[in-house]
Structure formats: C-alpha cells, structure tokens
C-alpha cells in the first residue's frame, strides 16, 4: 500500500511529525512501513529561467544556455533536444547532490571547451519514475508549464516535496487501503482529531437507470449521473498527488476517480453515459464470452463464474475487475455514470486471479471494501470536480449496525498479564472511533464499520495493547504444574545416531524432500511416490520415499566442487504410501582417511561401511548376533549383488548397504561409491533391552591361534559360528586376524587365521582341557566345512 505523506496530511495534522517519525509510529502500531522515500530527490534545486540559448560551437548535441537563477546567471551546457530560450526550468547548481543523476554531485565542468556551471534537470533525474511520464518528458528536460518565481527552491515550489510510505498491510487491516482510515489510525496514535469530511451524496433525485441484481455475489449497486463534465488534464497539484500515490495521471475524470478510491478504500467505475445502449443494468453470472474487449485494449475470456455488469444485453464490465472498451470514458466524454458497489470478495478474487488482473481496484475488491461507505468516493469525486449529481439509482445500500462486544476488565489483565487502567482502555478505543459503553466491571464496545476484523473480546484487547504499547508489558515466566515429558525411542535414536555418526567421522547433510521421478526411480522398487498437484518444476515434483537419490545428488554435486572424499549421512522422514517413516542414509566415496606420516590411506570400501554401521548399532545397544546380515538378490537394482548386504533383526530386513551397482555407477559416472539405507522407525521398535551385569571372570583366559585353509564356498560367518557352537562353550571369542587369497594355497581355497579366546568361568584351565577344545574345533571344521589346518 503506497501512501503519500502530503495526502495523509490533508486529514490529520502532520506538521510536527516527520515522514520518518510517522513510519516508526505506524510500524510500532502494527502497520509495518517497509520503506520511506522522498517523492523527488536533489538538494538545492532552484527554478531557473533560460535567458538565452545557442548552439554549442564544438558539439552538435549540446546547447549553451544562459540561465537566470535570481542571485546569479549561470552558463550551462545542456544535452537535451527540447531546451530553448524563455523556458522555466529546474536547475541543479554546482554542489547539488542528486541520487538519480548520472553524477551524484553536480560540479563545474568544461564540456567540449565550454564552461558549464550546473545542470538543467529532467524528472528522471529527480527520481520520478518513467512510468508516470510522457515520451517527451523521458527524452528531455522538464519544461515547466508556467511562470514560477525565479530562484525559488524547486521541489516545494513545484509540489514535489512529498514522501512516499510503503506499508505492508496484514490481511486483517485491509481497511487501511483507505487513506482516510489510516488518518483515523494516525490521529489516534498522535492523540489528535481526524478532519471530518462528508461521505454521503445528499439530496440527489431519482436517476434514470433501472438496476437488476441477479447474483448473490452483488449485495449493493449504485449509479450516480453527472452531466456536462469538462474533460481535461488535471492540475499539477493533482498530478503530483497521483504520482506520489503510484498512479499515472491521465485526465480529470479518471484521476479524481482514482484519488477517491485511495482516500475512501472503495473503488468506483465510470461509464460514458453516451456509450451505454440501454437504461437497464443487470448484474449477473453465467455468461461465457471468449473475446471480451476491455478498456486496456486486451481481450479476456469470461467464464460462467465471473460476476458481470451488463447493459442492454452487452457486458460493460467484469464486476470489480475491468470495464469494457465500448463503454469506457475518454478525453471527449461529457456525461458519466459512476458506479459504486458491494461485491463478494471471494468472487472478485477468483476472477482477478484467473485473469491475472490485480489492479488497484480489483485488489481492493478482493480484500475489503466497506459496504457502509459506498458513497464516500462518489462524494469525493463530486466535491473535487465541483459537480452536482443529476440522479442516483441505489439498490442495497445499508446502514451500519455495529455488533456489541462485551469485555471484562479482568479478561484484559488475564490475557496481557499486566494491569491497564480502564480509563486508558476506553480512551484508546474511542480514539480509534470505537463506541464504548462503560458498565460497572465490563465495557461494551462497538467497532466502526470498516473494522470488520474486530469481532471478539481478544480482538478488542489487541487494539488496546497495540496503542498502549507492547513495551509496557513487564516480562514474566509461566507458572504451571510440572509436566513430565520424555523423548520417544525414535527421537532418542535419531539424536544418539547423529552424535555417534559425527563421532565416527561422518558429515551430516540436510537435503530437499522433493525430487524428480527420474532421480527417485534409481533407488526405488516402485514409482508410487506422493505427487504434487502444483509443483514449481519437474525437478521438485515428488515427495521422496528414500534418501539415496539425494545422497547421490549430493555426492555428484560435491565431486564437481573438487570434494572427492566424502563420508556423509542424512536422517530424515520419508513418505511411504500412507505413512512417514524416519530413514538414515549413508554415502561413502574416495578416501576416508588420507595418507599421513603416521597413517596409511583408508579408502571407502564395503568393510569400512560395515564397520561404521555395526559400530553405530553396537553403541545403540544392538550387538552383532542380534543384528544379522544376509546377501542381496543377484539382480539387486542399485547395489553390487556380491558386495552388498541386508541388515536384519528377528529375521526382518530393516536396512541395506553396499557398493553401488557397477552398471548404475557407469550410468551416473560415479567413482567407487558405497551407500546404506536404514529404516530407523523399524529399528526403534526393537529397542528396550537392558544388558544385565554378568559378573567378572575370576579365572584367566588363554588364547590359541589357528591358521586354516578354507574352501571358497565357505564364508567367515560359518567359521566363527561353528567355533562357538557345539561343545565349545569355553570359546568366548573368535577373532579373524588375517585373510589371504592367492598363491601357495590349494586351488579353490583361501586361508584365514583366527584367534580363539578360551576361558572357564569356574576354574583355571589346564593344558589338557585347552587342547581338547582346540582339537574339537579342528575336527568339527574338518568334518562339517572341509576346513583344514594350514601346514
């Protein structure tokens, strides 16, 4: 909402309040002023008179001007084509600061050998936007329209000394789309009275039109006739005001209509009475017209939900949005019919949105108009143009009946937590034009017609504290009974997992939940993703069902930024068919630990990821044994079939990890990359075991190492499991400390060295027992797995 400081000043005294003070005042009262800027800029600009002008001796483009600025006569070289003798112009003297000119500070210079002492200005150089100007103004200097006192300060003399305030209105305060409503607000804040002005069209006789309303989306419709208008350019004063309010000046009927709308908040539409075909207006819906020619010379499609104003069977306006070309006013218009109406905000908003036509009028109709002050803009129109209304046709105009709101003093204190004297409350409300009746312990409040947002007692309380000042609230802390809360197992698991994984050297990432079908397909078994109706782009159209697509995106992105070594994880919710689950994803590639003077290189590989996963699980309380792994399918979609594994608990798969499938790696141009995807929601269902203390062993343990030759089809899990089962209760641990594939080993075999930890909790072991255990293991290996001791 653009507000002119000068326009506002017509209705409330701002003589002791600067535009910047006004901005602070409004911001602190909930009307946030986003920007304050002068309408035109430039220090020490004066009115000058061009005494003489002649062609520059050395330049075709320049004119040498002799300019009288009262105290002195300046020689100025001017580049504008439209400059000439006997003109009144705006002069920037040397030293003048101008934010919008090509040079910020005007200096005495020499141009092609001729001295130039200043600049003759265009409106663009004063910072007045191009959109308000004619082509001649844009191309040249500003030629003033009449005689002005030579040497006078230019901005105030020309009425350019205005300020523009840009207010970001919250949806509840659409009433401020009326500058008069803003003036009431400012008056309340400044403890002043607003200037009362007439808002009604009085003593108008019955007009010559008939009005038929055939849609509920029109509650009131009024037409006012004005004849013999002298259609002409508006005065400079009006033009300046319009530009400060953000409108391009056109001619008086349009200009005054616009000013009336901005002051009252209610838009008016003006028809050329001589272009209307009939005396009957019908307001209705239900027509479909593919090619409605509007007054902006564009063609719009009308659908059956659009509210229309028709006259003589022809659509003369899309209600509240735009009028027809055939009925619109122009510079030759003599007789007009001014429309003011109460339309449904929702209906107008839908039409304006569909046609993408949010004009000043349709914006106001879409948000708020005041059905009780429909005549206000018409009255402003009449008074400004000195017109008499020749006839009025009014349907549905209502008298405002304020709804009473009861409020107790104790409620004010209960909600705000501070005491405000009742007198102050009443004073504040009355200054905001609320009517207040005081009873013993309660007050009854009647809001003014334009404050539709005030419905409940808490709305009134907000009005009181807003003006009383939030700074006057003394901070306290809530007093409540103690409520015990604990985290859910999943919440705890998420927190702990992040701590553990960061501790293990992995970097956390956070990525977008929306991704493309193409990316999601790579790591999904089905394409049943949650699909957006209105995505911004195909890249962000689906809610992801797993985290691996984004993990790969992040790895690729970082690789392109010279980060080849990555060990990443992400924990996030994903969407699966009908529920949101929490997943954990891993992504490893390149070096995990680099070569140093102390360390060997540690590359990302299957066993690194396996180690990280099992270390993390162990610390969460899931020991190996409870969590088991099993091979993936031979035709796994995205993981290397012989270098990947499922994680299971109670025989149910809750995760998978391994190397990216070579085919996929080739397709994505990935270096050796390892991924893991784990369903934390499922894992968290299995927590809750507490390990009981088992006592300390009083007897020493012994260790025995065995070197084994193992057939290729026997895996490590078979060796370790077999060593611990059967009669070998005394074997507490089996550690694999070497694995060797290659020469010197029997064909189709490999070698493994294991270390057995043997201990009896009840007595010290003797050599016989130890040998018996070891022999037994060797025999079982031989018998069940065809595993032999290495010679």
């Amino acid at each position, binding site marked *: 909402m653009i507000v002119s400081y000068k326009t506002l000043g017509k209705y409330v005294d701002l003589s002791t309040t600067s535009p910047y003070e006004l901005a602070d005042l409004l911001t602190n*009262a909930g009307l946030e002023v986003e920007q304050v800027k002068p309408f035109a800029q430039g220090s020490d600009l004066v009115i000058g008179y061009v005494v003489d002008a002649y062609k520059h001796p050395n330049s075709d483009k320049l004119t040498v001007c002799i300019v009288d600025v009262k105290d002195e006569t300046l020689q100025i070289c001017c580049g504008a084509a439209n400059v000439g003798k006997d003109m009144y112009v705006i002069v920037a003297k040397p030293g003048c600061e101008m934010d919008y000119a090509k040079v910020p500070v005007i200096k005495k210079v020499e141009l092609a050998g001729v001295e130039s002492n200043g600049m003759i200005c265009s409106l663009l150089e004063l910072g007045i936007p191009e959109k308000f100007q004619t082509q001649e103004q844009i191309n040249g200097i500003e030629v003033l329209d009449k005689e002005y006192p030579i040497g006078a300060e230019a901005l105030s003399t020309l009425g350019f000394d205005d300020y523009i305030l840009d207010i970001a209105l919250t949806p509840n305060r659409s009433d401020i789309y009326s500058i008069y409503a803003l003036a009431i607000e400012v008056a309340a804040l400044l403890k002043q009275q607003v200037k009362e002005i007439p808002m009604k069209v009085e003593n108008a006789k019955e007009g010559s039109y008939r009005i038929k309303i055939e849609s509920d989306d029109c509650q009131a419709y009024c037409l006012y006739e004005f004849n013999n208008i002298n259609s002409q350019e508006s005065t400079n004063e009006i033009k300046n005001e319009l530009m400060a309010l953000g409108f391009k000046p056109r001619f008086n009927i349009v200009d005054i209509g616009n000013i009336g709308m901005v002051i009252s908040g209610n838009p008016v539409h003006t028809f050329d009475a001589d272009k209307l075909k009939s005396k009957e207006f019908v307001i209705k819906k239900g027509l479909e017209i593919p090619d409605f020619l509007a007054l902006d010379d564009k063609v719009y499609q009308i659908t059956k939900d659009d509210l229309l104003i028709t006259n003589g069977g022809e659509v003369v306006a899309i209600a509240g949005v735009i009028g027809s070309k055939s009925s619109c006013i122009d510079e030759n218009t003599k007789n007009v019919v001014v429309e003011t109406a109460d339309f449904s905000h929702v209906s107008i908003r839908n039409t304006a949105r569909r046609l993408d036509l949010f004009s000043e009028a349709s914006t106001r109709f879409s948000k708020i108009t005041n059905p009780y002050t429909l005549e206000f803009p018409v009255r402003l129109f009449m008074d400004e143009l000195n017109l008499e209304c020749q006839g009025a046709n009014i349907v549905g105009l209502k008298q405002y009946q304020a709804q009473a709101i009861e409020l107790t003093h104790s409620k004010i204190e209960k909600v705000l937590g501070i005491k405000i004297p009742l007198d102050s409350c009443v004073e504040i409300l009355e200054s905001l034009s609320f009517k207040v009746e005081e009873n013993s312990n309660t007050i009854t409040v009647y809001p003014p017609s334009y404050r539709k947002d005030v419905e409940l007692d808490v709305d009134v309380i907000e009005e009181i504290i807003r003006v009383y000042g939030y700074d006057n609230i003394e901070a306290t802390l809530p007093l*409540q009974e103690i409520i015990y809360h604990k985290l859910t197992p999943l919440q705890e698991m998420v927190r702990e997992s992040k701590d553990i994984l960061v501790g293990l050297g992995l970097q956390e*990432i956070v990525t977008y939940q929306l991704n493309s079908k193409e990316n999601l397909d790579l790591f999904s078994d089905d394409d049943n993703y949650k699909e957006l109706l209105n995505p911004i782009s195909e890249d*962000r159209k689906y809610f992801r069902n797993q985290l691996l697509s984004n993990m790969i995106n992040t790895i690729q992105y970082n690789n392109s930024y010279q980060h080849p070594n990555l060990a990443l994880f992400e924990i996030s919710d994903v969407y699966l068919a009908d529920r949101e689950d929490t997943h954990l994803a891993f992504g490893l590639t390149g070096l995990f630990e680099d070569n140093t003077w*102390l360390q060997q290189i540690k590359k990302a590989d299957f066993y690194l990821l396996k180690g990280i996963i099992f270390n993390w699980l162990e610390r969460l309380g899931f020991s190996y044994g409870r969590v088991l792994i099993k091979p993936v399918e031979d035709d796994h979609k995205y993981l290397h079939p012989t270098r990947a594994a499922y994680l299971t608990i109670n025989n149910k798969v809750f995760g998978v990890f391994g190397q990216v499938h070579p085919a996929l790696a080739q397709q994505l141009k990935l270096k050796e990359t390892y991924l893991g995807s784990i369903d934390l929601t499922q894992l968290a269902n299995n927590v809750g075991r507490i390990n009981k203390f088992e006592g300390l062993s009083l007897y020493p343990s012994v260790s025995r190492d065995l070197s084994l030759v193992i057939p290729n089809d026997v895996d490590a899990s078979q060796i370790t499991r077999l060593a611990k089962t059967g009669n070998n209760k005394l074997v507490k641990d089996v550690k694999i400390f070497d694995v060797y594939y290659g020469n010197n080993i029997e064909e189709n075999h490999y070698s493994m060295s294991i270390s057995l930890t043997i201990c009896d909790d009840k007595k010290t072991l003797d050599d016989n027992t130890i040998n018996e255990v070891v022999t037994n293991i060797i025999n079982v290996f031989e018998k069940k797995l065809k595993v032999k001791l290495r010679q």
Partner: protein
Amino acid sequence: MLDKLKLEIIDKVNDVNNLEELKQVKVETLGKKGAITQLTKTMKDKSEEEKKTFGKQLHELKEYTNIILDQKEKFLLKQKIKADIEAEKIDIFLPGYEFAAGLYHPLTLVTKEIEDFFSSLGYSINEGNEVEEDKYNFEMLNIPKDHPARDMQDTFYFNAEELLRTHTSPVQVRTMENNDDKTTPVRMICPGKVYRRDEDDATHSHQFMQVEGLVVDKNISLADLKGTLELFAKKMFGDNTKVRFRPSYFPFTEPSVEVDLTCHICKGKGCSVCKNTGWIEILGAGQVHPNVIEAAGYDPNIYQGFAFGLGIERVAMLKYGIDDIRHLYNNNLGFLNQFNKVK
C-alpha cells in the same frame, strides 16, 4: 691404615663416571672380596681391645662408604635421566593421529540448541507430519477456505485435502487434540520441515525449518510469552539481548506480535545486518486464538496460552553470518566444514 683406605675409597668414588663403574667400586669395597669385607675377616685374629677400637673404626668406614656410594648413585641416576630425556626427544609439532572429521549440519546445531533450551524448561518435543491435511494446516487454525491469509503462504497441494504443511502450527491443534483429558496443560515445541511454493533464491527456500512453541493453561499471558522469549533470546544470542514486541497479524493468534531482538552484531547501535534499526525480526507469536483452542477441543473460556513460530534457517543465518539460504541445502563440503562449534 683405615684412614688411608678411606682416602682411597673417596678418590675412587670421585673418579666414577657412570653407574657401571660405581657398581665396580661397590664390589671392590663392600663386595665379598672387597677391601672392607677383607678387613672384617681379619677381626677374628685381633685382641679383644683391638677388636673394640678397630671394629668401631671399621664400622664407621663401612657406614661412610655406604653413604658416599649412595649419594654418588643418586647423582648419577639424575644425570642418566637427564641424558635419556635429551636422547628421547621427539618433534611435538608433527601432526597427531588424524581421525576422520565429521560435523553436524548447522541446522541440526541450531535445532539441538533450541530443543535443549526448551527441554530444560519442561517442554515436550513433539512431531507432526510433513504431509498434512488442509483441515489442520488451515481450517482449524482459523484460516477458512476463502480467508485472505491463504494468500500469504503459497501452498504445495497433493490433492484438495492433502498438502505439504506451510508451517509447524498444525502441531498446535494436533497436540491439544491428542490429549484425551482436555484439562491437561500443554507445554511443547515442535521442530520440523515446512514448505512454501517459493522459487529458491538467496532469502527464500521452498523447504525450510520452523520450531513451533505452545503453552496452554488457565492463566498463560502475553507477559509470560515475553518472559519466555527473553530467556530464549539470551540463550541463543547472549545475555544482553533484549526483546521487543511489534503488533502484527496471524489468523491463529490474537493479539499477534512480531518479535524483534536487539542486533547481536552491533548490540543495538545499528549496522548493515539490522538495516540500521538496531533490531532484528526473528519470529512471530501471540496469544492462541480462542477459535483454535476451541477447534482443538479445549474450552476457550477457561484455557488460554501463547504460541510462537521461529524460522531455524533465520537463526542459523544470523548466528553464523550465512548470506544465502541455499548454502544450507546445497551441502557443499567446503561450507559444512565450517560449523564445528555451537558458539
């Protein structure tokens, strides 16, 4: 004779340069075949009178020898340690074992700090769904279908009823609704991802994070909100941080306020970060609208409270001086590497 021996021993001990030599001297004097031991063996041939005086002198010499050997040993041990220290010198400036370094994402750092603060005040940490029903995201929050406030937040829809939540506020209603006993006081926060249909740029992200806060009881006032947020501001931005309320509008709170904090960069004096105002807008808050309390099944004539919604990215960007919100979601390692501290 003994005096001569004593002088000899003193000379020998003085000449000793290391522990081996000292051991040798000990053998030569006090050992089985040592000079003093030999003399002791001659005692049996002496008269009683001689035994008495000679024995005493010999004992004194033995004691004396022990003492000087001992002193010399201590001296030599000290010297040896000194020499060893010199010999065992290492370069302490060589780098130590380099463990793989991983860090929390900055959004996690800020979220944890906020969660820990409110947990310490007895707030529960609740979670809602990111795919939310229109009913909870809008209607029960006092934003009916044609409410102008729906223009404030452009929404991603899955269908007429399901959408990506545009704020964490639906969790307010869900939390109260889930309490079987509608007299149970509420004190909760809810951190989570939210979505707006914005094009991504330096200050907008279609996905971002919020923390919702809600306290409902019989007498929870706007002054309580101010006190709570003052404590929070001090925790997040330092002890001297002050809080300012400005009137604002949210459909689900009444009164509604924007909350500003004194700028932590310039301490309120005015700088580029706070656009010379000395204040930084940080969150929206207010007293829960009676319609919301009622929609969630509580009696608005008895129960009231405050709610607030805070943008986590905004806090992270202010705290760490991040100038572009997209950094937080690009996950460039060069960016992520820089957040190794909470403060």
